[in-house]
């Protein structure tokens, strides 16, 4: 087992390196932060001084190399202008994003898994069509449009829920306050998660229901409930693990648009600001974090898969 994990880890490293190279290239092509320094009082000398200060006067590969050696020494660099350590910026915004995405994902899967199974068990009946249609609707509503609708009803009309931030300014932000702020953004994100996954889980369960061993179980005269609960659902665990694995990456990318709309103080906002101001060290920090997150979750999926499915050899 450990040998398997180690082997997988060794395979992940070159991919991670490749991703950071591509990230750095795309980012540098996107434009230099020096372009942002314009105005009558900005002199050539000032720009050159900045370039030297930020190390931008060197060729791209030298910049990348410097960044990489710093990262290997545990230093993610410092944000331009504010000079704040990138690790600190990420650290202070990681919590809200993990909270938001964790709650949304749990909520989405809590809808998707039972709905998908229900739909598969009642295949080609009216209930099945209803669930599938709902899932199409869920995945077809743009998140920002749904957010607008929610804000319209719950904030403007009903005065029930706050529409921005993570807690009411001035208050300490107790759990109840945070929960109230969390409802709308997490519902918007959960809708998207549920929409795509209902159909995925439905077809995965359908495939299992057609297996010979289930026919055998039914032929033995076992009750419908026992067949589904004991024989089908246990085997449906595999595709469900895959679904959860596929969702984790989005945790790290952060829901940029939703965070933006609800002024949620998470990584999505940090990313958005960093892209707009071309804050290289911050962009690279977020990219690195998300790449590590994605690769680790892929690895976890592989390992869980190997644990859940005895036919996979490692």
């Amino acid at each position, binding site marked *: 087992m450990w040998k398997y994990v180690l082997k997988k880890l060794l395979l992940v490293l070159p991919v991670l390196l490749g991703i950071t190279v591509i990230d750095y290239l*795309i*980012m540098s092509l996107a434009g230099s932060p020096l372009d942002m320094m314009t105005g009558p009082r900005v002199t050539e000398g000032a720009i050159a001084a900045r370039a030297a200060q930020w190390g931008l006067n060197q060729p791209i590969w030298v910049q990348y190399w410097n960044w990489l050696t710093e990262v290997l020494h545990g230093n993610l660099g410092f944000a331009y202008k504010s000079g704040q350590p990138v690790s600190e910026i990420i650290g202070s915004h990681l919590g809200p994003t993990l909270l938001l995405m964790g709650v949304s994902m749990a909520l989405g899967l809590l809808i998707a898994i039972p709905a998908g199974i229900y739909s598969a068990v009642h295949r080609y009946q009216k209930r099945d069509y209803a669930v599938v249609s709902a899932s199409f609707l869920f995945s077809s509503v743009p998140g*920002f449009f749904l957010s607008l609708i929610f804000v*319209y009803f719950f904030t403007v009309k009903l005065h029930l829920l706050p529409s921005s931030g993570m807690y009411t300014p001035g208050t300490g932000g107790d759990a109840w306050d945070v929960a109230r702020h969390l409802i709308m953004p997490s519902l918007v994100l959960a809708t998207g998660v549920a929409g795509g996954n209902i159909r995925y889980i439905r077809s995965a369960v359908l495939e299992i229901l057609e297996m010979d061993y289930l026919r055998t179980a039914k032929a033995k005269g076992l009750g419908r409930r026992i067949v589904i609960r004991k024989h089908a659902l246990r085997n449906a665990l595999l595709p469900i693990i895959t679904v959860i694995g596929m969702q984790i990456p989005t945790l790290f990318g952060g829901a940029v648009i939703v965070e933006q709309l609800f002024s949620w103080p998470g990584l999505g906002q940090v990313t958005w600001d960093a892209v707009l101001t071309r804050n290289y060290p911050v962009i690279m920090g977020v990219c690195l974090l998300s790449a590590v997150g994605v690769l680790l979750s892929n690895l976890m999926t592989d390992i869980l898969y190997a644990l859940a499915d005895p036919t996979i050899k490692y």
Partner: protein
Amino acid sequence: MRKKDLSGKYGPLLRRFVRHKAAVVCLFVLTALILMALLAPWITPYEPTKPTGAFSQPPTAEHILGTDKIGRDMFSRILYGMRVSLLVGLLATLISTLIGVALGLVSGYFGGAIDKAIMGFTDMVMSFPYILLVLVAAAIFQPGMWSIVLILGFVDWPGVARLVRGNVLSLRETNFVKNDLASGMPGRYILFSEILPNTIAPVLVYATSVFALSILDEAALSFLGMGVQKPTPSLGNILQGAESLSVLTDKPWLWVPAGTVIVLLVVCINFVGDALRDALDPRNAEG
């Protein structure tokens, strides 16, 4: 006689499609929306970018969806916006499907080191956080319609590539391809006359979902101001106005119709794609 032959080939396919009543309705709605977008200049007398009425006017007989804050007719803005959104979706889907099919074919057919390299690259693109890639790419180019087309086109291909590769791998094991190989048919013939036609159906189905996704992504990017730029209307940038609270609360005609059109378009494309999947699936052939 000939007519009977045709119904023999496409009849069952059509029958299986028609079984999905929702999809048939959606096909009609979609056709109607596309026609409205195409015939926009003949349907609406107003230019989408020129003020033609009072500011922020609620719907009236003259302006059936009202006017925006500088007096442009909302109905014609939505029609022209639909044009832009559909065009962006279509072109982005075309580009990503072409790239995906090409890479998938090469990867699956030649195998070995080429396959490893292409699939490694595909995995890398796939493990990028999608929105981050799009955002950074949107910052590279000057935002606008053509850059959105290129960005979405160059980001959405990995799914198609994997799908095609998988298909090629399984087709290579079929008897008719083995037969071709054994009888020394040229690779060009096997690839384009035997393998490619047999992967078209799943690619077509996949392309419908990419089309739907591209429309959603264009809307989101334009909404954020990184997509299609004003004054050209797109369904996404029409909704930008709703970020202001007074529009959101007091002028629903400025944002509800445009959002509804997006939902309608995407839902319908998804339903049609789903019915197509069922109709084209050879496992349902007896039905």
